[in-house]
């Protein structure tokens, strides 16, 4: 037991643990929306379009998380604006936003002669070097995301499952779309600290996709997704402390492993059911 709790005597690992819990909260709250509405590409794109915001904030000496937040919201606004033309579907709007903002980030990054450590952390993430101030902000974001999903769950479910019916109930489906994009953007910000822009969306998508294989109801799916994200995150911290592995990529690798395991279990269960009914 001591071996398991030993890492968490250190302040930086306590912060990493707290960050993992926050990731678990947004992963459970927003991950199912991304998976069920098939918005993985949108999430990935929002994560990548924050790059210019991070680089500009770095150059200006401002908060990198603030820069990322500004560009995440700008991406949401851009996608929503492009989508207002009914001839442009979501994927195309996201693609346009991505191809407009990501190259800008690459150019700005190339202009940086000596990228600092903190900038690299934002690109590739480092669970073990999270600043207390960033953690406070992400905690506020995660709690807000969870509160919004909880209070607006009926709008989100109805608009995701049956858009015309949601509109008939008096819900604005268009507003639900923008709300979902904003929730994804906010969740990406929470995950940035853990794994960076490149892998952020994996922390939202993989736990929910794994939970979908294991559950048949929405609330259990959300809870299981959160538990999977937290469990893999803690396991990655243990591996990092005891085996010297890089914690951030380890989280994503463990999540991918959990998905693979769940997929195999599901396939085995189906095969068993088929042979029982044959």
């Amino acid at each position, binding site marked *: 037991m001591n071996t398991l709790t030993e890492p968490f005597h250190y302040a930086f690992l306590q912060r990493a643990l707290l960050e993992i819990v926050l990731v678990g909260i947004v992963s459970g709250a927003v991950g199912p929306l991304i998976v069920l509405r098939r918005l993985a590409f949108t999430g990935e794109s929002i994560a990548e379009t924050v790059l210019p915001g991070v680089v500009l904030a770095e150059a200006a000496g401002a908060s990198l998380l603030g820069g990322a937040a500004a560009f995440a919201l700008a991406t949401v606004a851009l996608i929503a604006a492009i989508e207002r033309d009914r001839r442009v579907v979501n994927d195309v709007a996201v693609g346009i936003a991505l191809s407009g903002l990501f190259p800008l980030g690459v150019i700005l990054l190339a202009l940086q002669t000596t990228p600092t450590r903190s900038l690299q952390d934002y690109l590739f993430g480092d669970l073990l070097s999270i600043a207390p101030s960033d953690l406070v902000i992400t905690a506020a974001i995660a709690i807000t995301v969870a509160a919004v999903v909880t209070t*607006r769950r*009926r709008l989100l479910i109805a608009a995701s499952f049956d858009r015309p019916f949601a*509109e008939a*109930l008096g819900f604005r489906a268009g507003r639900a779309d923008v709300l979902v994009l904003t929730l994804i953007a906010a969740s990406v910000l929470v995950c940035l600290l853990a794994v960076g822009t490149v892998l952020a969306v994996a922390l939202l998508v993989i736990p929910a996709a794994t939970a*979908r294989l294991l559950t*048949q*109801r*929405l609330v259990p799916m959300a809870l299981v997704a959160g538990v999977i994200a937290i469990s893999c995150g803690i396991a990655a911290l243990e591996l990092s402390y005891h085996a010297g592995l890089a914690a951030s990529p380890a989280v994503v690798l463990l999540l991918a492993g959990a998905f693979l395991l769940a997929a195999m279990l599901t396939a085995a269960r189906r095969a068993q059911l088929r042979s029982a009914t044959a």
Partner: protein
Amino acid sequence: MTDLLVVSDLTVRYGRRVALERASFRVAAGETVAVVGPNGAGKTTLFRAILGAIGPTAGSIELADRPGYVPQADDEQLDFPLTALDVVLMGGYRRRRCWQPLGRELRREALDALARVGLTDRARSQIGELSGGQRQRVVLARALLSRSRLLLLDEPLNGVDATSQEVIIELLAELRTQGVSTLISTHDLAIARRISTRMLFLSTTVIAEGPTEEAFTPDVLRRTYAGSLLVVDAGGHALELLETGGHAHEHAH
């Protein structure tokens, strides 16, 4: 009789295209109104305008109640982790504040609604595991939970098996006796004639509207379908309707 819906001179345009022009009609309590017309006649536009999903370009819509709604069948979201009971409960979403749980009373009502469409034993089934006809009965049960006195059903019998079709038709008759009005769009003229008390013939504008036996005439059909249907007078009230596109073949006797 109390009017639950009054549509006056309703015009809806999408840009330059006129989807619906100067449509006027009323729906009183306990009426079953079949809305028929060719593709592009404005049936879905009319429903969306009544539901408030699109604003009228001109004219007005007066509603006594927010209508319950059964949208056209959509197989897109069958992988959603929802049971039939979960889907029916959506009908009660607006009856609870966002922080309130749906509660036992609403659950009991949802189970009653499922019983009315003959699906008590499928309450815990995943929505994606049900047949097309069963899913259509589930969304009808969901509309019942709105407790509205006016239901809008957008092609509820499309692709539905015979059992489900009969269950739905019987339920509509039962609702009529309870004073609930229904507005049903359908392409099936034989069914429309069988189940409705009134008919609304639509082809961008209202061609004819009135009690079914008066409105359902060869002349009205000719004007409504203008070339897309061949109307053959087979003597007396019998009509044979053949879609000139070559797909549908319907008999209305």
